[in-house]
Protein backbone atom coordinates (compact mmCIF):
# COMPACT_ATOMS: atom_id res chain seq x y z
CA UNK A 1 0.00 0.00 0.00
CA UNK A 2 2.69 2.40 1.08
CA UNK A 3 4.80 1.32 -1.88
CA UNK A 4 1.99 2.04 -4.33
CA UNK A 5 1.57 5.47 -2.79
CA UNK A 6 5.23 6.33 -3.10
CA UNK A 7 5.36 5.14 -6.69
CA UNK A 8 2.32 7.25 -7.48
CA UNK A 9 3.91 10.32 -5.94
CA UNK A 10 7.15 9.63 -7.82
CA UNK A 11 5.24 9.58 -11.10
CA UNK A 12 3.59 12.80 -9.99
CA UNK A 13 6.99 14.41 -9.37
CA UNK A 14 8.22 13.23 -12.74
CA UNK A 15 5.25 14.74 -14.53
CA UNK A 16 5.77 18.01 -12.67
CA UNK A 17 9.46 18.01 -13.55
CA UNK A 18 8.86 17.38 -17.22
CA UNK A 19 6.11 20.01 -17.31
CA UNK A 20 8.61 22.50 -15.88
CA UNK A 21 11.25 21.40 -18.36
CA UNK A 22 8.96 21.73 -21.35
CA UNK A 23 7.62 25.14 -20.33
CA UNK A 24 11.17 26.42 -19.71
CA UNK A 25 12.36 25.00 -23.05
CA UNK A 26 9.49 26.73 -24.85
CA UNK A 27 10.38 30.02 -23.18
CA UNK A 28 13.96 29.76 -24.42
CA UNK A 29 13.02 28.62 -27.92
CA UNK A 30 10.02 30.95 -28.41
CA UNK A 31 11.81 34.13 -29.55
CA UNK A 32 13.83 32.17 -32.13
CA UNK A 33 10.83 30.23 -33.46
CA UNK A 34 8.72 33.39 -33.43
CA UNK A 35 11.19 35.24 -35.65
CA UNK A 36 11.84 32.42 -38.10
CA UNK A 37 8.08 31.87 -38.58
CA UNK A 38 7.18 35.56 -38.77
CA UNK A 39 9.81 36.16 -41.42
CA UNK A 40 7.70 34.01 -43.78
CA UNK A 41 4.68 36.29 -43.54
CA UNK A 42 3.74 38.45 -46.50
CA UNK A 43 5.09 42.02 -46.08
CA UNK A 44 1.67 43.44 -45.25
CA UNK A 45 1.13 40.97 -42.42
CA UNK A 46 4.73 41.18 -41.11
CA UNK A 47 4.20 44.83 -40.18
CA UNK A 48 1.48 43.92 -37.67
CA UNK A 49 2.12 42.40 -34.21
CA UNK A 50 3.08 38.73 -34.58
CA UNK A 51 -0.11 37.24 -33.14
CA UNK A 52 -0.14 34.37 -33.98
CA UNK A 53 3.54 33.95 -34.92
CA UNK A 54 2.91 31.85 -38.02
CA UNK A 55 1.71 33.33 -41.32
CA UNK A 56 -2.07 33.38 -41.59
CA UNK A 57 -2.34 34.72 -45.11
CA UNK A 58 -0.01 32.26 -46.80
CA UNK A 59 3.74 31.61 -46.74
CA UNK A 60 5.91 34.11 -48.60
CA UNK A 61 9.53 35.11 -49.01
CA UNK A 62 8.58 38.74 -49.67
CA UNK A 63 10.49 39.91 -46.57
CA UNK A 64 13.72 38.44 -47.90
CA UNK A 65 13.12 40.17 -51.23
CA UNK A 66 12.49 43.49 -49.42
CA UNK A 67 15.63 43.01 -47.34
CA UNK A 68 17.55 42.68 -50.59
CA UNK A 69 16.43 46.16 -51.72
CA UNK A 70 18.09 48.07 -48.83
CA UNK A 71 21.55 49.57 -49.21
CA UNK A 72 23.76 47.18 -51.14
CA UNK A 73 21.25 44.38 -50.85
CA UNK A 74 21.37 41.24 -48.78
CA UNK A 75 23.89 39.29 -50.83
CA UNK A 76 26.86 41.66 -50.44
CA UNK A 77 26.88 41.88 -46.61
CA UNK A 78 26.21 38.15 -46.52
CA UNK A 79 29.22 37.52 -48.76
CA UNK A 80 31.28 39.81 -46.52
CA UNK A 81 30.16 37.92 -43.42
CA UNK A 82 30.86 34.54 -45.02
CA UNK A 83 34.28 35.68 -46.26
CA UNK A 84 35.28 37.12 -42.88
CA UNK A 85 34.04 34.08 -40.95
CA UNK A 86 35.56 31.46 -43.25
CA UNK A 87 38.91 33.26 -43.44
CA UNK A 88 38.92 33.64 -39.65
CA UNK A 89 38.33 29.90 -39.34
CA UNK A 90 41.07 29.00 -41.84
CA UNK A 91 43.69 31.33 -40.36
CA UNK A 92 42.78 30.51 -36.76
CA UNK A 93 43.23 26.82 -37.50
CA UNK A 94 46.53 27.27 -39.34
CA UNK A 95 48.05 29.66 -36.80
CA UNK A 96 46.56 27.76 -33.85
CA UNK A 97 47.78 24.34 -35.01
CA UNK A 98 51.29 25.60 -35.76
CA UNK A 99 51.60 27.44 -32.46
CA UNK A 100 49.98 24.64 -30.47
CA UNK A 101 52.46 22.17 -31.98
CA UNK A 102 55.37 24.52 -31.33
CA UNK A 103 54.42 25.15 -27.71
CA UNK A 104 53.71 21.50 -27.04
CA UNK A 105 56.69 19.76 -28.66
CA UNK A 106 59.68 22.12 -28.70
CA UNK A 107 61.85 23.84 -26.17
CA UNK A 108 63.13 27.21 -27.29
CA UNK A 109 64.17 30.47 -25.66
CA UNK A 110 61.35 32.64 -24.27
CA UNK A 111 58.87 29.81 -24.78
CA UNK A 112 57.09 30.18 -21.45
CA UNK A 113 57.10 33.95 -21.60
CA UNK A 114 55.55 33.97 -25.10
CA UNK A 115 52.90 31.46 -24.05
CA UNK A 116 51.94 33.45 -20.97
CA UNK A 117 51.86 36.73 -22.92
CA UNK A 118 49.56 35.26 -25.59
CA UNK A 119 47.22 33.72 -23.03
CA UNK A 120 47.10 36.82 -20.85
CA UNK A 121 45.77 38.96 -23.72
CA UNK A 122 42.45 37.38 -22.76
CA UNK A 123 42.46 39.58 -19.64
CA UNK A 124 42.63 42.78 -21.63
CA UNK A 125 39.38 43.87 -23.26
CA UNK A 126 39.86 44.49 -27.00
CA UNK A 127 37.22 47.22 -26.69
CA UNK A 128 39.88 49.36 -25.02
CA UNK A 129 42.42 49.09 -27.87
CA UNK A 130 40.11 49.57 -30.86
CA UNK A 131 41.33 53.08 -31.73
CA UNK A 132 45.00 52.06 -32.08
CA UNK A 133 43.96 48.92 -33.99
CA UNK A 134 42.18 51.27 -36.39
CA UNK A 135 45.40 53.34 -36.73
CA UNK A 136 47.60 50.23 -37.16
CA UNK A 137 45.33 48.92 -39.91
CA UNK A 138 45.53 52.32 -41.64
CA UNK A 139 49.32 52.26 -41.35
CA UNK A 140 49.70 48.83 -42.97
CA UNK A 141 47.15 49.55 -45.68
CA UNK A 142 44.45 47.22 -44.37
CA UNK A 143 42.18 50.07 -43.33
CA UNK A 144 38.55 49.39 -44.20
CA UNK A 145 39.31 45.95 -45.65
CA UNK A 146 37.74 42.64 -44.75
CA UNK A 147 41.26 41.16 -44.52
CA UNK A 148 42.09 43.66 -41.78
CA UNK A 149 38.98 42.63 -39.88
CA UNK A 150 39.99 38.97 -40.28
CA UNK A 151 43.44 39.70 -38.78
CA UNK A 152 41.78 41.30 -35.75
CA UNK A 153 39.36 38.39 -35.29
CA UNK A 154 42.12 35.77 -35.61
CA UNK A 155 44.15 37.62 -32.97
CA UNK A 156 41.15 37.73 -30.64
CA UNK A 157 40.66 33.96 -31.08
CA UNK A 158 44.34 33.15 -30.56
CA UNK A 159 44.46 32.61 -26.79
CA UNK A 160 41.65 30.05 -27.02
CA UNK A 161 42.96 28.40 -30.22
CA UNK A 162 46.50 28.03 -28.90
CA UNK A 163 45.39 26.85 -25.48
CA UNK A 164 43.13 24.19 -27.04
CA UNK A 165 45.68 23.02 -29.59
CA UNK A 166 48.56 22.84 -27.15
CA UNK A 167 46.46 20.64 -24.87
CA UNK A 168 45.46 18.51 -27.86
CA UNK A 169 49.09 17.98 -28.89
CA UNK A 170 50.13 17.38 -25.26
CA UNK A 171 47.65 14.50 -25.15
CA UNK A 172 49.35 12.68 -28.06
CA UNK A 173 51.83 10.10 -26.66
CA UNK A 174 55.44 10.84 -27.59
CA UNK A 175 55.99 7.19 -28.59
CA UNK A 176 53.86 7.73 -31.69
CA UNK A 177 56.11 10.59 -32.76
CA UNK A 178 59.29 8.68 -32.05
CA UNK A 179 58.06 5.72 -34.10
CA UNK A 180 57.25 8.02 -37.01
CA UNK A 181 60.65 9.68 -36.74
CA UNK A 182 62.30 6.25 -36.92
CA UNK A 183 60.40 5.75 -40.17
CA UNK A 184 62.06 8.90 -41.47
CA UNK A 185 59.24 11.44 -41.12
CA UNK A 186 60.48 15.04 -41.04
CA UNK A 187 58.78 17.82 -39.06
CA UNK A 188 56.26 18.74 -41.74
CA UNK A 189 55.13 15.21 -42.60
CA UNK A 190 55.06 14.49 -38.90
CA UNK A 191 52.64 17.34 -38.28
CA UNK A 192 50.44 16.78 -41.34
CA UNK A 193 50.38 12.96 -41.58
CA UNK A 194 50.88 11.76 -38.04
CA UNK A 195 49.65 14.48 -35.66
CA UNK A 196 46.73 16.10 -37.46
CA UNK A 197 44.55 12.97 -37.56
CA UNK A 198 45.07 12.65 -33.81
CA UNK A 199 44.17 16.23 -32.86
CA UNK A 200 41.25 16.86 -35.23
CA UNK A 201 38.61 17.10 -32.46
CA UNK A 202 40.55 20.10 -31.12
CA UNK A 203 40.67 21.59 -34.61
CA UNK A 204 36.90 21.26 -35.05
CA UNK A 205 36.40 22.96 -31.70
CA UNK A 206 38.59 25.98 -32.47
CA UNK A 207 37.12 26.23 -35.98
CA UNK A 208 33.61 26.31 -34.53
CA UNK A 209 34.45 28.99 -31.97
CA UNK A 210 36.29 31.04 -34.61
CA UNK A 211 33.29 30.89 -36.95
CA UNK A 212 30.74 31.87 -34.30
CA UNK A 213 33.02 34.61 -32.97
CA UNK A 214 33.60 36.19 -36.37
CA UNK A 215 30.03 35.74 -37.62
CA UNK A 216 28.54 37.39 -34.54
CA UNK A 217 31.11 40.09 -33.72
CA UNK A 218 29.65 43.59 -33.71
CA UNK A 219 31.71 46.41 -32.19
CA UNK A 220 34.98 45.92 -34.08
CA UNK A 221 33.15 45.54 -37.38
CA UNK A 222 31.10 48.66 -36.59
CA UNK A 223 34.21 50.72 -35.88
CA UNK A 224 36.62 49.34 -38.48
CA UNK A 225 34.31 48.91 -41.51
CA UNK A 226 33.23 52.43 -42.36
CA UNK A 227 32.48 51.78 -46.02
CA UNK A 228 28.97 50.48 -46.64
CA UNK A 229 30.22 47.96 -49.20
CA UNK A 230 32.32 46.34 -46.44
CA UNK A 231 29.47 45.98 -43.91
CA UNK A 232 29.01 42.56 -42.37
CA UNK A 233 25.48 41.30 -41.66
CA UNK A 234 25.20 42.62 -38.07
CA UNK A 235 26.30 46.10 -39.17
CA UNK A 236 24.04 46.17 -42.21
CA UNK A 237 21.06 44.95 -40.17
CA UNK A 238 21.67 47.52 -37.43
CA UNK A 239 21.83 50.25 -40.06
CA UNK A 240 18.52 49.04 -41.45
CA UNK A 241 16.92 48.74 -37.99
CA UNK A 242 18.07 52.25 -37.03
CA UNK A 243 16.20 53.68 -40.00
CA UNK A 244 19.29 54.57 -42.03
CA UNK A 245 17.57 53.37 -45.22
CA UNK A 246 14.26 55.11 -44.48
CA UNK A 247 11.23 53.73 -42.63
CA UNK A 248 12.01 50.59 -40.63
CA UNK A 249 10.62 47.47 -42.26
CA UNK A 250 10.19 44.99 -39.38
CA UNK A 251 9.50 42.17 -41.82
CA UNK A 252 12.94 42.72 -43.32
CA UNK A 253 14.44 42.80 -39.81
CA UNK A 254 12.88 39.40 -39.05
CA UNK A 255 14.26 38.01 -42.30
CA UNK A 256 17.72 39.45 -41.57
CA UNK A 257 17.79 38.13 -38.02
CA UNK A 258 16.82 34.70 -39.36
CA UNK A 259 19.71 34.81 -41.85
CA UNK A 260 22.06 35.76 -39.00
CA UNK A 261 20.81 33.09 -36.58
CA UNK A 262 20.34 30.01 -38.74
CA UNK A 263 24.03 29.26 -39.55
CA UNK A 264 24.91 29.47 -35.83
CA UNK A 265 22.04 27.22 -34.80
CA UNK A 266 22.72 24.63 -37.52
CA UNK A 267 26.45 24.51 -36.79
CA UNK A 268 25.78 24.21 -33.08
CA UNK A 269 23.26 21.39 -33.51
CA UNK A 270 25.64 19.50 -35.80
CA UNK A 271 28.77 20.04 -33.70
CA UNK A 272 27.27 20.33 -30.22
CA UNK A 273 29.71 17.99 -28.53
CA UNK A 274 32.69 19.95 -29.83
CA UNK A 275 31.17 23.16 -28.53
CA UNK A 276 30.52 21.75 -25.07
CA UNK A 277 34.03 20.23 -25.13
CA UNK A 278 35.52 23.67 -25.75
CA UNK A 279 33.49 25.22 -22.95
CA UNK A 280 34.47 22.41 -20.58
CA UNK A 281 38.16 22.74 -21.46
CA UNK A 282 37.94 26.43 -20.69
CA UNK A 283 35.98 25.87 -17.50
CA UNK A 284 38.10 23.07 -16.04
CA UNK A 285 41.49 24.59 -16.64
Amino acid at each position, binding site marked *: MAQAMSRKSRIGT*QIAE*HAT*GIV*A*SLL*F*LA*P*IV*WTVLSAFKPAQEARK*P*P*LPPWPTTGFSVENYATLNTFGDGLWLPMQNSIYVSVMTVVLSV*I*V*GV*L*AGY*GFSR*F*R*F*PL*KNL*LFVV*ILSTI*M*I*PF*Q*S*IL*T*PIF*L*VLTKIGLHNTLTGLV*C*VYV*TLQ*LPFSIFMMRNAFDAVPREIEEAARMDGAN*NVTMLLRVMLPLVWPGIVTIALFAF*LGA*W*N*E*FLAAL*VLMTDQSKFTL*PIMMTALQSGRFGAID*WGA*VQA*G*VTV*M*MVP*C*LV*LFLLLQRFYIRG*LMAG*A*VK
Partner: protein
Amino acid sequence: MTSIATITTPARPRKLVGAGRRQWIGLLYVAPAVALVVVFFIIPLCMTAWMSLHNWPLMGVHRFIGLDNYWAILRDTRFWNALRFTGYYTVIVTIAIFAVAFPLALFIERPRPLTGFYRTSFFMPAVIGFASASLLWSWLLNVDAGLFSPAAFELGLTEKKVNLLATFQPAFWSIIAMVVWKVAGFTMIILMTGLQSIPPDLQEAAMIDGAGPFARFRAITLPLMRRTLALALILSVAGSVLAFDQFYIILRGGPRNQTLTAVYWIFNQSFVSFKLGYGAALSMVLLVILVALSLIQLRLLRQPEGVD
Protein backbone atom coordinates in the same frame (compact mmCIF):
# COMPACT_ATOMS: atom_id res chain seq x y z
CA MET B 1 68.67 15.01 -39.64
CA THR B 2 71.96 14.07 -41.29
CA SER B 3 72.17 17.35 -43.14
CA ILE B 4 71.89 19.27 -39.90
CA ALA B 5 74.45 17.08 -38.18
CA THR B 6 77.05 17.56 -40.92
CA ILE B 7 77.09 21.34 -40.73
CA THR B 8 77.53 21.50 -36.96
CA THR B 9 80.90 22.15 -35.39
CA PRO B 10 82.61 18.83 -34.70
CA ALA B 11 83.76 19.97 -31.24
CA ARG B 12 80.28 19.45 -29.79
CA PRO B 13 78.56 16.10 -29.48
CA ARG B 14 76.52 15.66 -32.65
CA LYS B 15 73.30 14.46 -31.11
CA LEU B 16 72.94 17.34 -28.67
CA VAL B 17 73.52 20.03 -31.26
CA GLY B 18 71.16 18.39 -33.69
CA ALA B 19 68.49 18.19 -31.03
CA GLY B 20 69.17 21.83 -30.07
CA ARG B 21 68.72 22.98 -33.65
CA ARG B 22 65.55 21.00 -33.91
CA GLN B 23 64.20 22.66 -30.78
CA TRP B 24 64.83 26.12 -32.23
CA ILE B 25 62.44 25.29 -35.05
CA GLY B 26 59.71 25.61 -32.42
CA LEU B 27 60.15 29.38 -32.70
CA LEU B 28 59.21 29.16 -36.37
CA TYR B 29 55.99 27.33 -35.51
CA VAL B 30 54.88 29.95 -33.01
CA ALA B 31 56.12 32.92 -35.07
CA PRO B 32 52.82 33.66 -36.92
CA ALA B 33 50.90 33.70 -33.65
CA VAL B 34 53.48 35.92 -31.99
CA ALA B 35 53.49 38.29 -34.97
CA LEU B 36 49.69 38.65 -34.86
CA VAL B 37 49.64 39.25 -31.13
CA VAL B 38 52.43 41.83 -31.38
CA VAL B 39 50.91 43.76 -34.31
CA PHE B 40 47.24 43.61 -33.31
CA PHE B 41 47.51 43.51 -29.53
CA ILE B 42 50.80 44.52 -27.92
CA ILE B 43 51.47 47.52 -30.18
CA PRO B 44 47.87 48.82 -29.94
CA LEU B 45 48.03 48.34 -26.19
CA CYS B 46 51.17 50.46 -25.91
CA MET B 47 49.68 52.99 -28.33
CA THR B 48 46.60 53.33 -26.10
CA ALA B 49 48.83 54.30 -23.18
CA TRP B 50 50.84 56.69 -25.41
CA MET B 51 47.78 58.26 -27.04
CA SER B 52 46.13 58.83 -23.67
CA LEU B 53 48.85 61.44 -22.99
CA HIS B 54 47.99 63.37 -26.15
CA ASN B 55 45.41 65.60 -27.67
CA TRP B 56 44.81 63.39 -30.71
CA PRO B 57 42.19 64.46 -33.25
CA LEU B 58 41.38 62.17 -36.20
CA MET B 59 42.86 64.65 -38.69
CA GLY B 60 45.74 67.05 -38.08
CA VAL B 61 48.62 66.93 -35.63
CA HIS B 62 48.53 65.41 -32.16
CA ARG B 63 50.06 67.23 -29.25
CA PHE B 64 51.56 65.92 -26.01
CA ILE B 65 49.52 67.18 -23.05
CA GLY B 66 50.75 64.97 -20.20
CA LEU B 67 48.04 63.87 -17.81
CA ASP B 68 45.48 66.46 -18.91
CA ASN B 69 43.15 63.81 -20.33
CA TYR B 70 43.12 62.05 -16.97
CA TRP B 71 42.36 65.30 -15.12
CA ALA B 72 39.53 65.84 -17.59
CA ILE B 73 38.16 62.37 -16.79
CA LEU B 74 37.94 63.30 -13.11
CA ARG B 75 35.56 66.13 -14.06
CA ASP B 76 33.67 64.14 -16.71
CA THR B 77 30.42 63.54 -14.85
CA ARG B 78 28.85 61.80 -17.85
CA PHE B 79 31.63 59.20 -17.83
CA TRP B 80 31.15 58.58 -14.12
CA ASN B 81 27.41 58.31 -14.72
CA ALA B 82 28.12 55.76 -17.45
CA LEU B 83 30.44 53.88 -15.12
CA ARG B 84 27.85 53.94 -12.34
CA PHE B 85 25.17 52.68 -14.70
CA THR B 86 27.52 49.93 -15.94
CA GLY B 87 28.14 48.84 -12.35
CA TYR B 88 24.42 48.86 -11.55
CA TYR B 89 23.65 46.86 -14.70
CA THR B 90 26.45 44.37 -13.95
CA VAL B 91 25.18 43.65 -10.44
CA ILE B 92 21.54 43.27 -11.46
CA VAL B 93 22.15 41.20 -14.58
CA THR B 94 24.63 38.89 -12.84
CA ILE B 95 22.18 38.16 -10.03
CA ALA B 96 19.42 37.58 -12.59
CA ILE B 97 21.58 35.26 -14.71
CA PHE B 98 22.57 33.15 -11.70
CA ALA B 99 19.00 33.06 -10.39
CA VAL B 100 17.96 31.43 -13.67
CA ALA B 101 21.10 29.47 -14.58
CA PHE B 102 21.61 27.69 -11.25
CA PRO B 103 18.18 26.03 -11.11
CA LEU B 104 18.58 25.10 -14.80
CA ALA B 105 21.97 23.52 -14.10
CA LEU B 106 20.55 21.50 -11.19
CA PHE B 107 17.65 20.50 -13.43
CA ILE B 108 19.70 19.21 -16.36
CA GLU B 109 22.46 17.70 -14.26
CA ARG B 110 20.27 14.79 -13.13
CA PRO B 111 19.95 12.21 -15.91
CA ARG B 112 16.36 11.62 -17.01
CA PRO B 113 14.64 11.15 -20.35
CA LEU B 114 14.66 14.32 -22.50
CA THR B 115 17.60 15.89 -20.60
CA GLY B 116 19.49 16.29 -23.86
CA PHE B 117 16.55 18.13 -25.41
CA TYR B 118 16.17 20.43 -22.41
CA ARG B 119 19.88 21.21 -22.31
CA THR B 120 20.00 22.01 -26.02
CA SER B 121 16.89 24.22 -25.83
CA PHE B 122 18.21 26.22 -22.90
CA PHE B 123 21.53 26.64 -24.66
CA MET B 124 20.26 27.65 -28.12
CA PRO B 125 20.07 31.42 -27.48
CA ALA B 126 23.70 31.35 -26.29
CA VAL B 127 25.07 30.47 -29.74
CA ILE B 128 23.38 33.32 -31.60
CA GLY B 129 25.24 36.61 -31.41
CA PHE B 130 24.46 39.53 -29.15
CA ALA B 131 23.75 41.64 -32.22
CA SER B 132 21.23 39.11 -33.62
CA ALA B 133 19.60 38.73 -30.20
CA SER B 134 19.41 42.52 -29.80
CA LEU B 135 17.87 43.01 -33.24
CA LEU B 136 15.40 40.22 -32.50
CA TRP B 137 14.35 41.77 -29.18
CA SER B 138 14.22 45.29 -30.58
CA TRP B 139 11.46 43.93 -32.78
CA LEU B 140 9.69 42.02 -29.97
CA LEU B 141 9.87 45.18 -27.80
CA ASN B 142 8.61 47.53 -30.51
CA VAL B 143 5.40 49.24 -29.54
CA ASP B 144 3.61 48.89 -32.89
CA ALA B 145 4.97 45.85 -34.70
CA GLY B 146 6.37 43.97 -31.69
CA LEU B 147 5.03 41.22 -29.47
CA PHE B 148 4.96 42.28 -25.82
CA SER B 149 3.00 45.56 -25.81
CA PRO B 150 0.40 44.47 -28.39
CA ALA B 151 -0.02 41.09 -26.63
CA ALA B 152 -0.48 42.75 -23.23
CA PHE B 153 -3.01 45.10 -24.80
CA GLU B 154 -4.93 42.31 -26.56
CA LEU B 155 -5.07 40.32 -23.33
CA GLY B 156 -6.50 43.37 -21.58
CA LEU B 157 -3.54 43.72 -19.21
CA THR B 158 -2.91 47.32 -20.29
CA GLU B 159 -5.40 49.97 -21.40
CA LYS B 160 -3.29 51.03 -24.35
CA LYS B 161 -0.13 49.84 -26.04
CA VAL B 162 2.72 50.81 -23.71
CA ASN B 163 6.04 51.79 -25.29
CA LEU B 164 8.42 49.70 -23.21
CA LEU B 165 11.48 51.54 -24.49
CA ALA B 166 10.32 55.08 -23.70
CA THR B 167 11.10 55.21 -19.98
CA PHE B 168 14.05 53.94 -17.97
CA GLN B 169 12.56 51.21 -15.78
CA PRO B 170 10.73 49.12 -18.41
CA ALA B 171 13.56 49.66 -20.90
CA PHE B 172 16.20 48.57 -18.39
CA TRP B 173 14.30 45.46 -17.30
CA SER B 174 13.60 44.55 -20.91
CA ILE B 175 17.34 44.48 -21.53
CA ILE B 176 17.85 42.38 -18.39
CA ALA B 177 15.23 39.90 -19.65
CA MET B 178 16.88 39.73 -23.06
CA VAL B 179 20.38 39.19 -21.64
CA VAL B 180 19.19 36.51 -19.20
CA TRP B 181 17.45 34.73 -22.09
CA LYS B 182 20.62 34.93 -24.16
CA VAL B 183 23.26 34.12 -21.51
CA ALA B 184 21.61 31.83 -18.91
CA GLY B 185 22.23 28.68 -21.00
CA PHE B 186 25.92 29.47 -21.22
CA THR B 187 26.28 29.99 -17.47
CA MET B 188 24.20 26.85 -16.95
CA ILE B 189 26.75 24.71 -18.84
CA ILE B 190 29.65 26.15 -16.84
CA LEU B 191 27.83 25.46 -13.57
CA MET B 192 26.92 21.96 -14.78
CA THR B 193 30.61 21.08 -15.22
CA GLY B 194 31.09 22.05 -11.58
CA LEU B 195 28.12 19.98 -10.42
CA GLN B 196 29.35 16.95 -12.34
CA SER B 197 32.77 17.13 -10.71
CA ILE B 198 31.23 16.51 -7.25
CA PRO B 199 31.63 12.82 -6.36
CA PRO B 200 28.16 11.25 -6.13
CA ASP B 201 29.09 9.14 -3.10
CA LEU B 202 29.49 12.33 -1.05
CA GLN B 203 25.86 13.20 -1.69
CA GLU B 204 24.82 9.62 -0.93
CA ALA B 205 26.74 9.57 2.33
CA ALA B 206 25.09 12.82 3.40
CA MET B 207 21.69 11.42 2.43
CA ILE B 208 22.28 8.34 4.60
CA ASP B 209 23.24 10.67 7.45
CA GLY B 210 19.80 12.20 7.06
CA ALA B 211 20.73 15.53 5.44
CA GLY B 212 17.83 17.08 3.52
CA PRO B 213 18.24 18.43 -0.03
CA PHE B 214 18.71 22.01 1.17
CA ALA B 215 21.32 21.05 3.77
CA ARG B 216 23.15 18.95 1.17
CA PHE B 217 23.14 21.85 -1.28
CA ARG B 218 24.61 24.18 1.31
CA ALA B 219 27.12 21.84 2.90
CA ILE B 220 28.33 19.91 -0.16
CA THR B 221 27.29 21.42 -3.49
CA LEU B 222 28.14 25.08 -2.84
CA PRO B 223 31.55 24.62 -1.16
CA LEU B 224 32.73 22.05 -3.71
CA MET B 225 31.67 24.30 -6.58
CA ARG B 226 33.55 27.36 -5.42
CA ARG B 227 35.99 27.42 -8.30
CA THR B 228 33.29 26.92 -10.92
CA LEU B 229 31.12 29.55 -9.27
CA ALA B 230 34.04 31.97 -9.30
CA LEU B 231 34.63 31.30 -12.99
CA ALA B 232 30.97 31.69 -13.97
CA LEU B 233 30.80 34.84 -11.85
CA ILE B 234 33.84 36.47 -13.41
CA LEU B 235 32.73 35.60 -16.97
CA SER B 236 29.38 37.19 -16.26
CA VAL B 237 30.88 40.26 -14.59
CA ALA B 238 33.54 40.86 -17.25
CA GLY B 239 30.98 40.41 -20.04
CA SER B 240 28.56 42.83 -18.38
CA VAL B 241 31.15 45.51 -17.63
CA LEU B 242 31.94 45.52 -21.37
CA ALA B 243 28.28 45.56 -22.46
CA PHE B 244 27.65 47.55 -25.61
CA ASP B 245 25.71 45.77 -28.39
CA GLN B 246 22.34 45.51 -26.66
CA PHE B 247 22.33 49.12 -25.41
CA TYR B 248 23.45 50.46 -28.78
CA ILE B 249 21.06 48.39 -30.88
CA ILE B 250 17.92 48.33 -28.73
CA LEU B 251 18.11 51.63 -26.82
CA ARG B 252 20.77 53.81 -28.56
CA GLY B 253 21.80 54.74 -25.01
CA GLY B 254 18.35 56.15 -24.35
CA PRO B 255 15.92 57.02 -22.95
CA ARG B 256 17.60 60.41 -22.30
CA ASN B 257 21.13 58.91 -22.36
CA GLN B 258 20.35 57.00 -19.18
CA THR B 259 21.64 53.67 -20.47
CA LEU B 260 25.05 54.72 -21.80
CA THR B 261 27.56 52.10 -20.63
CA ALA B 262 31.29 52.66 -20.19
CA VAL B 263 32.19 51.10 -23.55
CA TYR B 264 29.37 53.07 -25.21
CA TRP B 265 30.78 56.34 -23.79
CA ILE B 266 34.29 55.46 -25.01
CA PHE B 267 32.83 54.59 -28.41
CA ASN B 268 31.06 57.97 -28.54
CA GLN B 269 34.16 59.92 -27.53
CA SER B 270 36.49 58.04 -29.91
CA PHE B 271 34.38 57.37 -32.98
CA VAL B 272 31.59 59.94 -32.90
CA SER B 273 33.41 62.97 -31.44
CA PHE B 274 36.81 61.67 -32.72
CA LYS B 275 38.61 62.68 -29.51
CA LEU B 276 41.02 59.77 -29.91
CA GLY B 277 43.41 60.82 -27.13
CA TYR B 278 40.62 61.29 -24.62
CA GLY B 279 39.04 58.02 -25.70
CA ALA B 280 42.37 56.30 -25.11
CA ALA B 281 42.57 57.72 -21.59
CA LEU B 282 39.04 56.48 -20.89
CA SER B 283 40.08 53.09 -22.30
CA MET B 284 43.02 52.96 -19.90
CA VAL B 285 40.63 53.47 -16.97
CA LEU B 286 38.37 50.67 -18.25
CA LEU B 287 41.39 48.46 -18.84
CA VAL B 288 42.66 48.92 -15.30
CA ILE B 289 39.21 48.02 -13.95
CA LEU B 290 39.06 44.86 -16.08
CA VAL B 291 42.59 43.72 -15.25
CA ALA B 292 41.87 44.26 -11.55
CA LEU B 293 38.76 42.08 -11.92
CA SER B 294 40.81 39.40 -13.73
CA LEU B 295 43.44 39.38 -11.00
CA ILE B 296 40.75 38.93 -8.36
CA GLN B 297 39.47 36.04 -10.46
CA LEU B 298 42.90 34.41 -10.62
CA ARG B 299 43.18 34.63 -6.83
CA LEU B 300 39.74 33.11 -6.36
CA LEU B 301 40.56 30.31 -8.79
CA ARG B 302 43.96 29.54 -7.36
CA GLN B 303 42.77 28.82 -3.83
CA PRO B 304 42.31 25.09 -3.30
CA GLU B 305 38.83 23.72 -3.71
CA GLY B 306 36.64 23.76 -0.63
CA VAL B 307 39.18 25.46 1.63
CA ASP B 308 38.49 28.92 2.97
